């Protein structure tokens, strides 16, 4: 396998090549086609009437007489089923999310009516004229309060607000006598994924094919089709879902939207195309949110910093409804399975609660539960280090799984596949120069700011498949990933894959894989994705899986296609197939060579020249792929941050940032770097800027980008990046999934750095984001405590 890679690196296009992207040109000329760019004859716009209240009974919806035929409510949607995302985990309580609210609304922004007009502005005028008669009910917006016995109930018939409670325990009693015991409560804020493009749906009906066509900005078009068929009660064959260019996903577009169901119904009812384009206000207040965790956590360790165990109670605010297909419990259940991190952990107990509140449903966001888990665990490790009198990095080095233990099955039965975790940490420390940094801290800063160093390390299960997901029992279990490879009559290659690309550069990296297999110039490779009618079934793009799964599928399909090409080529060269090779898009034998173009021409245009026993499948192959072991690849990274904290203004500046990452073999290092840079920016957002606050009535308060702060160019430094490339043992080319990793470790590294900076003044921050107000508050509180002690 590796010999092959080396051979094609010479051409600069295969696996490992830093190839510029095929998709760039159209995007840079404004010729990308996002859902809002689609124009269909007769199309009208939809605006929704949404709930202004977090929890209310609907007493009436008053529609002005003039708009009776332009406004539709739940009463109109006869035969449309609510969205149900059930988990098979025992004890899971089912929520039914009506696509338009029926008797009750359970979150601000919940859909109540849809209004249709020739333009969005007019549709909004109609929406504004609809009058709601709502009886406000007590709302619960705090997940810990929601667990209390007297809390208002989001779903009355449940009797409580718990979607799911899980318990996991291994030998915790063995840890309880440890000499070091540190306990804290740690909180991560509710966030919005905020891709620059929001959601959007264009729905129309193709009478020729008797097909509903739903164009939607989505990561998983085949899964959306599953959900639409269930909600609409239609055969899958009568639904086509297209996802065009997508302006960023990050998990936000991995959900079946009630709006998709509504628009589908509406176009069939009205007989003309309709569209709804999510605006930023809708996105922030009404669409899915993410990341809100609370941990009550205790770490046990020996005096030398060796970890003895973790005891944790984790709560995740799942919002009002279980989102399709990942469900309301994936996040909390994942917390329990990954909290021990990349460490050897002898004892462990974790109890989790997925809690319903009167807020948007949560969705897995880049990193899913890992970002919160890394934040909680790595902040605690710094406290263990302080108790043990060790450098924080030393505690990590003493507890990380060692390279000679690989592959390693950890306490929650995660199978860490390969790598050298301590080496990643050592390289990061060397790059950041800990000694120089500590000396600088002792000197102090002329401007009065305080310098801090923080490290964090994680390992990330990615591209995990059937064996893992069948256990969750959610509506989606990934199986074999398929790809179709087809040679066109003039020798070009068409690849059809069911995953999608919304920034991940699949049009380039999958072409590189094809080049690796067939030697074809990437300029002659065309990638077709984002359309259920044109691609094989796939669970789509999520979980850092595309490079591993779609890359493997493309390699397999191209390999099979290559075999057929060689057989035809051998016949044309009048050689035995065993004597020919497929190199640089040519079949070469001892007596000469024949190009892909000539072979394709023969199959399509001159079949009379084909061998009698030619494979009738021709130059069109669909193959499937699954790694030898589908428990996932484990990429990992050590992050180190140096920050300067202004204790009087609370401002945090990132002075230096180092990432040492192991993503296995890299298909395109430039693309991998880009994923890590982008992940870091989102991690900085989680650490310092992004928060969706609510008031006491469950009203969301960050409803514009002036309130919900995304990091900009001055908030995100250029990190220093170092790669380790330990090939994954079970995947094609040794590739590991890395798409999410960049966003996992930064909040922990930055928070540890801030706490390191403020340690001497006694302040400690255990909640994200670390805002100026929270820093100053902690500093003032520490000063007060200091005075009180003196």
């Amino acid at each position, binding site marked *: 396998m590796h010999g092959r890679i080396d051979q094609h690196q010479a051409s600069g296009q295969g696996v490992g090549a830093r190839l510029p*992207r095929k998709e760039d040109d*159209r995007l840079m000329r404004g*010729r990308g086609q996002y859902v809002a760019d689609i124009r269909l004859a007769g199309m009208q716009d939809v605006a929704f009437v949404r709930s202004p209240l977090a929890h209310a009974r609907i007493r009436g919806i008053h529609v002005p007489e003039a708009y009776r035929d332009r406004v539709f409510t739940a009463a109109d949607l006869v035969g449309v089923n609510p969205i149900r995302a059930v988990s098979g985990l025992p004890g899971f309580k089912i929520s039914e999310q009506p696509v338009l609210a029926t008797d009750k609304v359970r979150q601000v922004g919940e859909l109540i009516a849809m209004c249709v007009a020739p333009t969005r502005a007019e549709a909004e005028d109609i929406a504004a004229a609809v009058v709601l008669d709502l009886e*406000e009910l007590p709302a619960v917006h705090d997940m810990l309060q929601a667990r209390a016995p007297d809390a208002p109930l989001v779903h009355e018939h449940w009797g409580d607000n718990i979607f799911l409670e899980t318990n996991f325990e291994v030998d915790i009693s063995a840890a309880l006598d440890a000499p070091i015991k540190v306990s804290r409560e740690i909180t991560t804020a509710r966030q919005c994924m905020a891709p620059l493009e929001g959601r959007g749906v264009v729905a129309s009906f193709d009478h020729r094919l008797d097909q509903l066509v739903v164009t939607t900005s989505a990561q998983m078009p085949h899964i959306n089709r599953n959900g639409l068929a269930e909600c609409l009660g239609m055969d899958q064959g009568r639904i086509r879902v297209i996802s065009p260019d997508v302006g960023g996903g990050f998990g936000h577009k991995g959900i079946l939207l009630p709006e998709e169901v509504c628009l589908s119904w509406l176009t069939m009812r009205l007989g003309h195309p309709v569209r709804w384009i999510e605006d930023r206000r809708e996105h922030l207040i009404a669409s899915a949110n993410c990341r809100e965790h609370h941990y009550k956590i205790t770490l046990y360790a020996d005096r030398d910093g060796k970890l003895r165990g973790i005891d944790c109670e984790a709560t995740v605010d799942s919002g009002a409804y279980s989102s399709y297909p990942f469900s309301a419990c994936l996040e909390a259940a994942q917390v329990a399975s990954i909290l021990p991190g990349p460490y050897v952990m002898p004892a462990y107990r974790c109890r989790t609660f997925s809690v319903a509140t009167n807020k948007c449903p949560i969705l897995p966001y880049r990193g899913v539960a890992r970002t919160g888990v890394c934040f909680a665990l790595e902040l605690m490790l710094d406290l263990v280090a302080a108790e043990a009198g060790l450098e924080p990095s030393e505690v990590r080095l003493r507890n990380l799984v060692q390279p000679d233990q690989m592959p390693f099955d950890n306490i929650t039965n995660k199978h860490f596949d390969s790598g050298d975790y301590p080496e990643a940490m050592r390289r990061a420390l060397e790059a950041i120069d800990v000694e120089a940094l500590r000396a600088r801290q002792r000197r102090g800063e002329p401007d009065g700011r305080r310098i801090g160093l923080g490290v964090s390390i994680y390992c990330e299960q990615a591209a995990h498949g059937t064996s893992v997901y069948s256990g969750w029992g959610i509506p989606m279990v990934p199986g074999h990933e398929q790809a179709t490879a087809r040679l066109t009559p003039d020798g070009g290659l068409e690849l059809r894959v069911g995953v999608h690309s919304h920034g991940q550069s699949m049009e380039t990296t999958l072409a590189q894989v094809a080049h690796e297999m067939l030697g074809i110039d990437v300029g002659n490779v065309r990638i077709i994705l984002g359309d259920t009618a044109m691609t094989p079934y796939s669970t789509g793009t999520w979980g850092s899986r595309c490079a591993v799964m779609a890359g493997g599928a493309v390699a397999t399909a191209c390999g099979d296609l290559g075999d057929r090409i060689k057989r035809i080529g051998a016949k044309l060269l009048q050689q035995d197939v065993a004597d020919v090779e497929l190199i640089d898009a040519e079949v070469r034998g001892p007596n000469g060579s024949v190009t892909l173009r000539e072979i394709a021409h023969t199959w399509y245009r001159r079949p009379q020249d084909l061998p009698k026993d030619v494979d009738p499948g021709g130059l069109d192959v669909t193959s499937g792929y699954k790694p030898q072991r589908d428990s996932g690849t484990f990429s990992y990274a050590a992050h180190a941050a140096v920050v300067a904290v202004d204790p009087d203004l609370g401002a945090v500046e990132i002075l230096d940032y180092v990432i040492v990452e192991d993503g296995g073999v890299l298909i395109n290092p430039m693309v991998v770097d*880009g994923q890590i*840079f*982008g992940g870091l*920016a989102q991690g900085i957002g989680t650490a310092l800027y992004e928060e969706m606050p609510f008031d006491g009535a469950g009203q969301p308060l960050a409803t*514009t980008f002036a309130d919900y702060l995304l990091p900009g160019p001055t908030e995100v430094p*250029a990190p220093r990046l170092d790669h380790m490339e330990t090939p994954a043992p079970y995947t094609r080319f040794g590739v590991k999934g890395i798409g999410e990793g960049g966003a996992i470790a930064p909040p922990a590294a930055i928070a540890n750095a801030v706490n390191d900076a403020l340690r001497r003044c006694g302040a400690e921050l255990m909640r994200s984001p670390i805002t100026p107000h929270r820093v100053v508050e902690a500093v003032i509180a520490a000063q007060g405590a200091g005075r009180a002690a003196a």
Partner: protein
Amino acid sequence: MSTLALTVNRCAVDCRSEPRTSLADLVRDQLDLTGTHLGCEHGVCGACTVLIDGVPARSCITFAAACEGAAVTTIEGLDDDEIATELRAAFTREHALQCGYCTPGMLVSARDLVLRLPDADEHQIRIGMSGNLCRCTGYVGIVRAVMSVIAARRARGIQPVVGGGRAILGPAGSGHGAAKADLRVASPSAAASVTAPRPAAAIADFTPAAMIEQAFEVQHPPAQVAALFTDVAAVAACLPGVALTNAADPNRIEGEIRVQVGPIAAQFAGVARIERAADGLSGRIIGTGNDRRSRSSTQGEIRYRLKPLDAGRATRIDLTIGYTLTGLLAQVGRSGLVRDLARRLIDQFTGNLERKLSGQTVMPAGADQHLNGLALLLGLIRARLPRWLGGTTRR
């Protein structure tokens, strides 16, 4: 609808648009120039940035009508532009885009920076690009790409252009059009045909989200002061902007309160009731109302407690005023602005109450002229309560 003439990507175009149509919607929906993207529609994210008269501007918060006669360049108009061509090459080399949604606005802003910035200073480039958000790249490639183009051009001896070449004053795009007749649009009549439902008969208790306490003293015995609080209409009328629609039942009144903060105007229609302790020395007024237009609702309560002072000759009045707000108006993130409005309203309320108890009818100094119910309030005061006399002191 009106006709609008402007130049887009060097072509003269005539469009018909409503005054409320943004420049972004105009180029996207009428000219099919969909490379201009909408990312926030409130001027923060920069995805919609285009050139207006050669300088970058937000097309989402610039109304098309305001660009009459202007020259607009969208990303599609930069296909052959020299700087944009260099930037595109640098962007692809440095992997400065992933999903591509922010890219057109990014390139428009970057082009302006390449034109104006004296040298390839990374910090200045980051500041200069800070009005364009990217969610994918972490800006690493973008900053490198812009730096490389600036460095290469300055190395070739191409000098920066101050102000991007703009020589006239005023907003970009302004000043071309001849004076326009006043454009009228048909207001949607149907909207007016539905009246907001009154809140239900029951006025529910609630937990206020915000509380403000005030106290003052008057030179009158508590019993006299207590008498005022039996007149709900009179007390309610001390709130600026209140207009009563039904005060027949002294324990339950209906009315409206109009509040305005800057360009935001809301009119809450609602009901209020009063509860009094047996001795009349304490009680509360509780009310609830809806603003139909913003789909916002508010609940408020005024708790009062009267304490005798100076051997029963004077009274100290303690007020605790609490309110909640839900809906669009509550979701304005900078809640401090709403708090300031509430504080000003309550200041005026207590001031008015104080003046009323003192028998003054003068217009309070510095009163907020925008609180349109004020005149009505003063009328009520004059009509109902002319005889309270005596000085007051604020605490």
